[in-house]
């Protein structure tokens, strides 16, 4: 009897050993940047192809997502696309950006095509006119945006702006300037100049105005300047000084810091009613307001528990809730555009560094290496962070991928710069 059962069992094994399909578990990914090659041909009257290549390469490389391979081995343009794909595959690139600058009956244009080398297909292809309005930098950044978005599905930020403050110490008296520039530091324009200190620049939600602190009246006061006209308006706060302006995303409010009864507290100014509401009420310092996405919640720095840490509070009511607990110093919080992360200045005994705090996971990760890093500002897509650091006693601006892996100093020749703020 037993033997019969065994028989049946064995036969069963026999028959089930042939599967209908094979299941394979793949779980060991390599984390790294996607390899890409860029090749721009031709030239315009003003610009060489190298300039386009360089700008796009810097943009994509600085984002942290791409590794730009040297394309000199495939510089010879071959007509047969299959052969080209084969060549690109051999080179190890996943993507190939091919661009051509040409003259079409007096109109100069640049045509670019993004190839997916693995699938052997074209992803996107566009033509952009090069005219007065579309200078080389603008066009190149635009191309970077398109490439970035097609591959990652994430919004490109290469055509956005940054604002920052510079100190010119070359003259007898220091000159302080507020600048607006491209993300790579080029096309920098000083929109305000003063012999007195300037601080804490912040963009309006539509990027049409910048609010900042000026000491022109020998004390900190908030001014709002319209970029297009240069018009300046002071934020009235009774006769008190005010600092740390923060624009609500719905454009209706501005949060700021003022001193009341010897304590630094946060207020919210209503642009419509011109009223000021007091938000915090604690002994000590409450400052550096940063709005939540819905213009209801405010993150801020407070030392109510001894050391400066980040707290949050609904600005109209409710109690303050402590956000950060790690380290002895957490300040200057900046919220990412998806509302999930705060970039901040963090010190855990090892100098002041930039850290990213995940609000949901309650996890803090240090992403910079200096000891005097400050003023972190997320890119509009949350994938990069701009901050101020020191190099040889001079202030510099650094852009880094949000995991700290790729770090690039922004070229702003010679100036002592600080307090960068990325536009929206």
């Amino acid at each position: 009897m037993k033997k019969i059962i065994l028989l049946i069992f064995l036969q069963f094994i026999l028959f089930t050993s042939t599967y209908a399909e094979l299941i394979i578990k793949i779980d060991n990914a390599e984390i790294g940047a996607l390899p890409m090659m860029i090749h721009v041909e031709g030239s315009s009257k003003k610009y060489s192809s190298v300039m386009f290549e360089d700008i796009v390469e810097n943009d994509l490389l600085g984002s942290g997502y791409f590794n730009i391979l040297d394309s000199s081995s495939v510089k010879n343009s071959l007509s047969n696309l299959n052969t080209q794909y084969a060549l690109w595959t051999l080179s190890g690139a996943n993507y190939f950006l091919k661009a051509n600058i040409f003259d079409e009956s007096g109109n100069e244009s640049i045509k670019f095509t993004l190839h997916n080398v693995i699938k052997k297909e074209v992803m996107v292809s566009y033509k952009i006119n090069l005219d007065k309005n579309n200078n080389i930098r603008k066009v190149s950044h635009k191309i970077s945006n398109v490439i970035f978005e097609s591959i990652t599905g994430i919004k490109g930020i290469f055509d956005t702006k940054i604002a920052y403050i510079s100190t010119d110490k070359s003259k007898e008296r220091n000159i302080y300037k507020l600048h607006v520039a491209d993300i790579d530091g080029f096309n920098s324009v000083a929109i305000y100049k003063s012999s007195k200190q300037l601080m804490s620049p912040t963009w309006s939600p539509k990027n049409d105005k910048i609010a900042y602190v000026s000491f022109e009246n020998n004390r900190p006061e908030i001014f709002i300047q319209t970029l297009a006209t240069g018009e300046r308006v002071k934020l009235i706060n009774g006769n008190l000084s005010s600092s740390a302006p923060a624009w609500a995303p719905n454009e209706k409010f501005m949060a700021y810091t003022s001193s009341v009864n010897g304590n630094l507290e946060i207020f919210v100014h209503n642009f419509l009613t011109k009223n000021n509401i007091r938000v915090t009420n604690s002994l000590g310092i409450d400052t550096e307001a940063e709005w939540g996405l819905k213009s209801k919640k405010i993150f801020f720095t407070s030392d109510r528990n001894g050391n400066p840490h980040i707290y949050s509070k609904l600005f109209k009511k409710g109690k303050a809730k402590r956000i950060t607990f790690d380290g002895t110093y957490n300040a200057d919080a900046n919220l990412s555009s998806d509302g999930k992360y705060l970039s901040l200045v963090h010190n855990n005994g090892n100098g002041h560094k930039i850290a990213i705090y995940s609000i949901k996971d309650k996890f803090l990760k240090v992403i910079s290496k200096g000891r005097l890093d400050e003023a972190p500002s997320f890119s509009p897509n949350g994938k990069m962070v701009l901050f101020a650091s020191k190099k040889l006693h001079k202030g510099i601006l650094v852009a880094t991928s949000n995991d700290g892996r790729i770090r690039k100093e922004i070229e702003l020749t010679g100036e002592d710069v600080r307090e960068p703020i990325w536009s929206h």
Partner: protein
Amino acid sequence: MNNNSKKKFIVTIKVIIVHIILILILDLNAISNLKKNKNSFNEINNAQFLNLKSISQEDIEEYRKLIKKKKAEEKKKRKIEADKKKKAEEKKKRKIEADKKKKRKIEADKKKKAEEKKKRKIEADKKKKKILENLKKEEEMDLISHDLLELEKELLEIEKYELLVRQQIIRNSQLSDAEAKYILNIKSRIENNWLLPHDIKHDKICAAIVNQLPSGKITSVKIHGCTGDTLYVDSLINAVWKSSPLPIAPDIEVFQENLILQFKGPN
């Protein structure tokens, strides 16, 4: 101390009493013995008194000689009797002993015999039993020999199957080795080509259904169960296409046209 002295006192009294009793007993015995001897002695003396008047000196001497003779005879007699008695006793003893011996022997013999009988009986019983069992067995064997034949037939068949199965097991293990190797080759090839950007977290399992030709060339890739996240899905697709052609199967039987790749990203 009081108790002890009391006890000693009691003991000494007891001892004294016992001694007194013993002495009394012994005395009584002695007295009774003395009494007995006295009586026998009195009887003899009385017998002599009757014949004293008519006896001359010669008579007396004869009589004395006679007495002496008699005494001697008596002595002899007594001796003979004693001897006789002794002999008789001895004889008796010997007889008793002999009887005893005999008895014992008889009993021993009896016992022996009984035991032997018992033994023989047991052996006989055993033999009987054995025989009975053997008989039984034989009967049984007779009964099942028929089944045995059938079983033998089945056994033969099973052996045949077992042979087949053994061959198949060997083949299976070859195949499973080959299959394991094949899976490993494909897995390494694809993992080597799987590149993920830095801030992608995706620990759910996404399946890619891959169709291939026997040459390893991939003909189609379909992703299942991975929604959203362009970069992640693209990374899977890229990893698969970049791995074409897939490694050739080490054994033709192991080749599968359809592969299900279960991708699991980092946490």
